[in-house]
């Protein structure tokens, strides 16, 4: 579980980069670029797992790295790209609830909250790096959620969801080796993605905003007005 001393530094740098990418994802409007950013983020995760692999040479980590590379860096982005092409949407312009700047501020706040909360665990910790890695990856999850709820396009939402998943992946990479289950998680992810993408391909030719308009009568009778 414990990587040698030099490696945490690399990992920390990678982690910070991943978080930075998440921040970018929060702010960027162009969907293609968004997808690209996600691809890079996933790639960094592959790098993280490789960095973790380096000291112990556990093959399971290598497997995780390769599966991640395959699905998250190659397959999923291309599926999304396909869907995007079908939907003919280029940009996701509007922001809800939070402006990009406040999103970033909230993310920082969330990070501190998570950090403080996890610091309660410090006495139990075998590995003090957990505090920083763990809270960074959990805040990545929260950032993913921010992406989902500030954006309107389903595709952005999916990327948000995938960001959350990246957070989980990171968390599990740092915490423990659960090769089987992590791999299954990634595969499940893939299945989910396929379902979502086919959903998009089948039914949705509009964004949620238009859908809200369609739903106006319904939401009125529910008493909701936004």
């Amino acid at each position, binding site marked *: 579980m414990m990587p040698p001393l030099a490696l945490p530094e690399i990992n920390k740098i990678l982690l910070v980069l991943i978080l930075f990418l998440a921040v970018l994802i929060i702010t960027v409007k162009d969907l293609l670029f968004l997808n690209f950013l996600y691809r890079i983020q996933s790639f960094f995760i592959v790098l993280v797992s490789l960095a973790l692999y380096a000291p112990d040479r556990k093959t399971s980590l290598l497997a995780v790295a390769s599966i991640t590379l395959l699905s998250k860096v190659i397959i999923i982005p291309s599926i999304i790209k396909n869907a995007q092409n079908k939907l003919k949407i280029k940009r996701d312009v509007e922001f809800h609830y939070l402006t990009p700047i406040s999103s970033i501020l909230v993310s920082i706040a969330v990070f501190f909250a998570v950090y403080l909360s996890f610091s309660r665990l410090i006495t139990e910790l075998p590995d003090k790096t957990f505090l920083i890695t763990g809270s960074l990856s959990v805040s990545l999850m929260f950032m993913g959620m921010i992406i989902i709820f500030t954006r309107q396009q389903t595709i952005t939402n999916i990327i948000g969801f995938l960001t959350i998943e990246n957070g989980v992946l990171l968390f599990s990479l740092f915490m423990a080796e659960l090769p089987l289950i992590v791999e299954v998680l990634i595969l499940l992810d893939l299945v989910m993605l396929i*379902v979502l993408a086919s959903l998009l391909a089948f039914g949705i030719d509009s964004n949620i905003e238009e859908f809200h308009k369609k739903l106006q009568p319904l939401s009125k009778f529910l008493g909701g007005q936004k």
Partner: protein
Amino acid sequence: MMLLSILVGVSAILLIIFLRSNKSINLVSLLHALYYAGLSIYQMYAGSLPQYYLENKYFFIDSLGIYELLIASVIFFLSILYLEGYIKSLVEHEELNPKFVKLFYICMNLLLMSVAFSFFSNNLALFWIFLELTTIFSAILIVILNAVENIYAALKYLFIASTCMLFSFVGLILLYAFTKHNFGAGTLNWSELMSSASLITPRIAAYSFMFIFIGFGAKAAIAPFHTWVPHAHSKAPSAVSAILSAVILNVGIYGIIRTFAVVRQTSSGQIASNMLIIFGFFTLGIASLSMLQQKNVKKLIAFSSIEHMGTILIAIGLATKASVFWVLIYIMASALAKSLLFLCAGIANRQYMSNDIDSVRNFIKLQPLASVGIIVGVLAISGLPPFALFMPKLLVLIQISKFSVLMLIIALLSILISTGSFALFFTKFFSSVDEASSIHKYNTPAKMKASIIILIILLALLGIFLPDRLADIAGNIVAELKI
């Protein structure tokens, strides 16, 4: 056993792929459900529990699993019985593409399998996987209808449930990492966790329970993670709604019970208890208030099942022997009542092609059996005698009253509000009579009627008498969980 189950499942799916007529497909699915029902009943009487399968004990069966499996398979059986006529009508009205009927049944069988296997899993991670699979398959069952709303309902379901489930995953990893640290070898096996729970550091237990709770709570419709429930339930075909509310939510609760039982062995048990109770009350309150102005019949039932989940959560949180015993009976009774209501609402949906209560006219005259079903269902779900929910509800309330009077009052108030909403719904539903309206009567197929009748009978029988064997099983569960 595992192999047999897989074999049965796979062969059922293969048969479905090769068979042509809808009737025989339905029959195969029925048999599949019947297999699990038979299995659970057989284990109930014959098996010495728990039994482990596979070398590393990844799969097992114990009383809680058997009990949940029995409920789930009965609901599956009745829903599939009901499904044939329902699908026919869906296809007739072009709400379902005939091409998808097969896919529908395949997903149904896969859902059944994943539910059953989630009960068989002796491992949190495996359980997590099967739980995730239930999300995917049930989402497909929702999305399969030709309506945009269904897609959005499924999207909400997928997004909310999976997001929360990812938190569960974090919890799992946390637990695994620290059991590895403490036990020497990491484990997520229920049986090992239970037997050496005292070795888990309390704080870690609390944190992982919290993370796990978010995900399982979302599957179990616990506020504020419940929001997918009304949408998914109202848009799904009624038989699927019945399964969603009576089975899928229960799988979530099952996970919570298991994890809670582990955490309770540590000194963080109290925190977990309080968490469950607080969330239970929050759910109860939100759900009962949401019911009041609900005009969509199926949403109303969905909120009611959320409300019941709140009560169940409170009772689990109280964690006394009696509360857990009665909450198990409660789970069974509410599952039956909810599915009865959904199946009857399905008939209303076929009759008026809408779930809106304003479109209902002359229901008693058009659908006498479904009317009886709704009457019984509403009575049963409101916890009124002589139906199954009365006693467990009362006894759960007793446990609450022992805990605190204030909580009792809050619980009673929310129960009143939800009963009131049902009364509103009930009177509106039946009192909308229009002699002049010329609604064409929907001829309910006999099989649909049969499943409703069976549910009514079950609810009535369990209302006046609790079979010894069921009580024994529930008692065993309490012992197994070391409550």
